[in-house]
């Protein structure tokens, strides 16, 4: 499903974020990615999401060689993956509904189908009653759940989350993790970056530790 073969990532600034990473995630697997700040967790997720290209090595996602994607194919590839961002990237100028609907609008769905799917996604994160609100009015946990709804509304097979519980209290954090577990139970492959050791150990899933590159 997800296979890193000797992946290195060097940013244009010359910063080597990942060096010679080998990693395999099975289909339907749920795993946590941990490591020190600057170890390259976000970079690794961005590579899978198609937001960065590997500098070296082969990255296979469901039989797609991500490094060999043509510029035109990249947007279509990105739609196959649901990503929850560290800083949630919600748009302040529109309602919760419209934020969650964005991936579907991009795909060109009819507004009737959009409504149906957005409601289903909001239902899964228990936010149906907040669909008309502005996301900036929501609490941190709710914002994060809106981000999750947006990531899953397209029903991706791979869901990535970058520090989804970063500034949530422990109880809320656990809630969010259970939400991911539910999606995993439905068959999605899930990779969550987090440095909350206590929380991820509690989840009893695979834990991948990323070492910082020493130059």
């Amino acid at each position, binding site marked *: 499903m997800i296979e890193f073969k000797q992946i290195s990532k060097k940013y244009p600034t010359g910063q080597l974020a990942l060096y010679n990473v080998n990693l395999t995630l099975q289909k339907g697997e749920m795993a946590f990615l941990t490591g020190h700040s600057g170890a390259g967790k976000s970079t690794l997720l961005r590579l899978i999401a198609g937001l960065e290209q590997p500098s070296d090595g082969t990255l296979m996602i469901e039989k797609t060689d991500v490094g060999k994607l043509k510029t035109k194919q990249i*947007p279509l590839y990105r739609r*196959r993956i649901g*990503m929850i961002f560290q800083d949630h*990237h919600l748009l302040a100028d529109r309602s919760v509904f419209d934020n969650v609907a964005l991936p579907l*609008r991009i795909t060109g*769905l009819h507004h009737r*189908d959009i409504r149906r799917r957005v409601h289903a996604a909001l239902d899964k994160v228990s936010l149906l009653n907040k669909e008309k609100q502005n996301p900036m009015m929501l609490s941190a946990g709710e914002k994060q759940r809106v981000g999750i709804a947006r990531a899953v509304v397209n029903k991706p097979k791979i869901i990535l989350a970058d520090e989804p519980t970063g500034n949530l209290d422990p109880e809320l954090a656990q809630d969010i993790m259970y939400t991911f577990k539910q999606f995993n139970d439905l068959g999605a492959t899930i990779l969550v970056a987090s440095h909350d050791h206590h929380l991820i150990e509690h989840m009893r899933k695979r834990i991948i530790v990323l070492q910082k590159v020493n130059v």
Partner: protein
Amino acid sequence: MARRPRARKRNAPRAKKRRNRSPHYSPFSTWWNQVNAAISFSLRRLWYNPISTWITLAAIAIALSLPAALHLMVKNMQTLTDDNQQIPTISVFLKQHISTDQAKDRGELISELSEVVTVLFVSKENALNKFKRLSGFAETLETLEENPLPHALVVTPNLRIMNDTKLTNLIRTLKSYPEVDAVQSDNEWMQRLRAIMDIAERVILVVSVLLALTVLLVVGNTIRLDIENRKEEIDVARFIGATRSYIRQPFIFGGLWYGFFGGILSLVIVHFSIFFLIAPTNRLSTLYGTQFNISGLDFSTSFYILIASGLLGIVGAWIAVTSHLRRREITF
């Protein structure tokens, strides 16, 4: 949570699934849904930012109405010259000593020229009578012993085969006859006016090109600011799989609306200006004893103005959004 069981079934391993696209979506309907959304989105953006929208529209409209008004001015002057061209005659004044018979003979010969339709003989007596009547010097002229006026021939050239060089040649031929003293073409000033208008048309062309560039810049800059305001949204959309054309669409439509509505506004401005001019032109034409009706922009010209302004808007927006995408794309 009623949906759960269905979702589970869909996600079952080895089940055939195409989750990202519903099977009944053809590429066309996908595209159409996107275009529809872009149209309503771009219109809503104009509507909810009325101040900047009106400023932009006014700038575009003013830039467009200047060449349109100039065009209209030249067109009206053209109808003025066209009207008078219906009787472009050449007056041939004969020498004093030429007798009536000699004059008539020469008239016959001239009428046989292929460029000439008719020749009218105006005797010196007729000419004097007419002059007396028109000038109001009748009594003074009565005291003259001799008629100071010569015989004249009024030549009507064949309009269908006439152009400026042929006319000049004909005048030269007429001048070369021994009986002829002077030749005067009534439409000389018309020719001069037409030459001036040729220049005016070029000026309009240059002005139009410059103002078209202005429209391009105004739309381009407005769209650029719009993009700047929505940078975050564009980035997020790119993150989750928006194509370049999806990003472009609402801005391109935005440019189209600016151009199109700016064009409509410019038509309104031009028509108001004409309305404003009707009374004084009528007064002027009655003073000159002529009938001159100022004419407005006709349907096809208005149509072309709208097409051109719409296209300018699209091109301006295209340039703005493409350059943004090019600059932004490096990072991901």
